[in-house]
C-alpha cells in the first residue's frame, strides 16, 4: 500500500534522514521506532507531504505521491495525526471533526449553505466511535490532553483515510487513556484501516504492531515482525541496549 524508497532529507548541513525504506501493506499495523532524533517524525512529515525529500520516492497504492501537496495526499487517502496536539483551538470538538468531513465532501467552497446543518450524522458517528460524543459542544481547548490526542485521531478519521499515520499517539497520556486509545486503534484496524505509527513505549509497540521498522541516526536498519526485530543483533546493540 505504502512504499518509501531510499528517502533522504537534509536541513542545511544536518542530515535528518540518510536513507529510509519502508513498506506498509494493506490492513497492517506498522510501527517505526528509534531514539530521539532518529528521523521518525521527519519521515512522517515527508510521507504526508509537509516536507519534500531531497531524494527518494513515496508510492501510495502504486502512485508516486512524492511531489504532491499535503491536501492532495490527504485526498489520496493518507491522514496524519500529529505528535504535538494540533487541533483547531477556537472551534468546538464537533466543529473540529466537521471541518474535516466537510473538506472531504468537497464543501470547502460552499459559501451559502449553513454549516450547522451539514455532515451532522457522520461527524457525530466519528465522535461517538472515539468516545467524544458527549463533549461535542465544548471548545477543544477545554479538553484534557488525552481527550485532545483522541480528537486528533477523530479529525484524521474525518477525511476517511485508508492509511492513518500517528506520530506518538499516546504521548503524555495516562495509563488508562493509553489503553483506551490502543483499543480504539485496534478496533479501527479491524474495521480495515491501515495504521502506521511511531511510539517510544517499546512494550506497547511490540504488543500492538504487526511489523516494526527501526531507525537509527537517519537510517532504517531493519523492518520485520516483532520477534525478528527483537532478535536482530544490530537493533539490540543500537536501540534495545543489548537486552
Amino acid at each position, binding site marked *: 500500500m505504502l512504499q518509501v524508497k531510499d528517502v533522504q532529507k537534509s536541513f542545511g548541513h544536518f542530515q535528518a534522514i540518510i536513507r529510509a525504506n519502508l513498506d506498509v501493506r494493506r490492513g497492517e499495523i506498522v510501527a517505526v521506532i528509534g531514539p530521539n532524533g532518529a528521523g521518525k517524525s521527519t519521515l512522517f512529515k515527508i510521507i504526508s507531504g509537509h516536507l519534500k525529500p531531497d531524494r527518494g520516492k513515496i508510492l501510495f497504492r502504486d502512485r508516486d505521491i512524492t511531489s504532491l501537496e499535503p491536501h492532495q495526499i490527504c485526498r489520496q487517502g493518507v491522514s496524519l495525526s500529529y505528535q504535538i496536539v494540533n487541533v*483547531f483551538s477556537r472551534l468546538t470538538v464537533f466543529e473540529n471533526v*466537521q471541518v474535516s468531513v466537510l473538506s472531504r465532501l468537497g464543501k470547502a467552497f460552499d459559501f451559502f449553505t449553513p454549516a450547522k446543518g451539514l455532515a451532522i450524522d457522520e461527524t457525530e458517528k466519528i465522535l461517538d466511535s472515539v468516545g467524544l460524543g458527549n463533549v461535542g459542544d465544548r471548545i477543544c481547548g477545554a479538553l484534557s490532553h488525552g481527550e485532545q490526542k483522541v480528537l486528533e485521531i477523530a479529525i484524521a478519521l474525518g477525511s476517511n483515510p485508508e492509511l492513518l499515520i500517528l506520530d506518538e499517539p499516546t504521548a503524555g497520556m495516562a495509563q488508562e487513556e493509553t489503553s483506551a486509545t490502543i483499543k480504539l486503534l485496534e478496533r479501527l484496524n479491524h474495521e480495515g484501516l491501515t495504521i502506521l505509527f511511531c511510539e517510544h513505549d517499546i512494550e506497547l509497540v511490540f504488543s500492538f504492531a504487526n511489523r516494526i521498522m527501526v531507525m537509527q541516526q537517519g537510517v532504517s536498519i531493519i523492518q520485520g515482525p516483532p520477534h525478528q526485530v527483537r532478535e536482530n543483533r544490530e537493533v539490540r546493540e543500537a536501540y534495545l541496549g543489548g537486552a
Partner: protein
Amino acid sequence: MVEAKGYFKIRTVALLSILLVVLAVAPSFLPRFFTYLLALALLTGLLSTSLNLALGFGGMYQFHHAVFYGIGAYGVSLMLMKTSLPPVTGFILGPILSAILALIMGIICIRLSKLYFGMLQLSLGSLVWVVIFRWYSFTGGDDGLHGVPIPSLIATVTGSYYFTLIVTVCCMAILYMIVNSPYGRILQAIRDNPERSASIGVRVRAHQLVALVIAGFFAGIAGILFVSVEGSAFPDLLSWTLSLELIIMCLFGGWFTFFGPMLGSAIMVGLRTLVGGYTEYWTLVLAIILMLLIYFLPEGVLGYFQGLGANPKNTSAEDR
C-alpha cells in the same frame, strides 16, 4: 443546552429587528448631522466587518485594508466624473476594481504568513496610495476628487443614508452567511491551524486568497457608499493610519465575533466626532484606547459581553 442556544438566537434576532426599525426611522427624528454620522458609522462598520473576514476569521494580518476602500471610492468617482456611462456602472465597477486589486496583492502576499504577510501588504498598499497621491491629472493628487455627480435619488443626506443602510444590511447578511457557511468554518479552521487544515485536504492558500478577494470586494462597496455620503474621494481613504484605525475597530468590538467590528466602528466614529469637537489630537486618544483595550478587553467589547453570558467551554462558531 439546545433550548439555551435557541433562546440566544431568538434574542439576537429580536435585538437586530429592533435595531433595524430604529435605524429605518432614525432620519425622521435625528438632525441632519447625526443622520450623516450614522451613515458614516454604518459604512465604516461594513468596512471593518469586511476586514474582519480576513483578520478575525481568516487569521491573516491584513494591515492595509483601507487601500481597497479607497480604490472602491476612486473607482466610482472617476467613472461618474470622467465617463458618460450610466452611474450604476460606476457603483458596480468600484467594488470589482477593489476585488481585482485584492486578488493581485493577495497573490503576491499569500506565500508569506503572519507579520511578513502584513508588512508586504502594507508596502504594496502604500505604493497604491503614492500613485493616487501623485497622479494629479487623473486622481486629483492630494486634493482628491470633489463634487462627484451623485445620482439625485441618493444625493441628499436622507437619500444617501437609506442607500447606505440598505446596502450595508444586504452586505452584512451576505457576509454573515459566508462566515457561517462551510467555507467560513474551514476559513476559521485555517486561522487556528493552517498546517492541520492542509492535512485534512484543505487548499489553504486558495481558501485564504478567496477570503482576501471577498474582503476587498466588500471594502470596495464601503468605498462607493462613502462617495454617496460625502460626494468626494481623497488619498486619506487609502492611508495606512485609516487601516490601523480599522484594525483597532475590529479589536475594540471583538475580532472573533461577527458583529463586533460593526459595534467597534460605531463607537469609534462616535468617539472621533465627540473628541474632535474638543481637541485635534484624536490619534492620542486612539492610542490610549488601544492600550486600555489590550490590557482590559483583549477579546473586545462584544467578545467580553458574550464571554459573560456564555459558558466558555461551549461557545460554538454560530454563537460567535
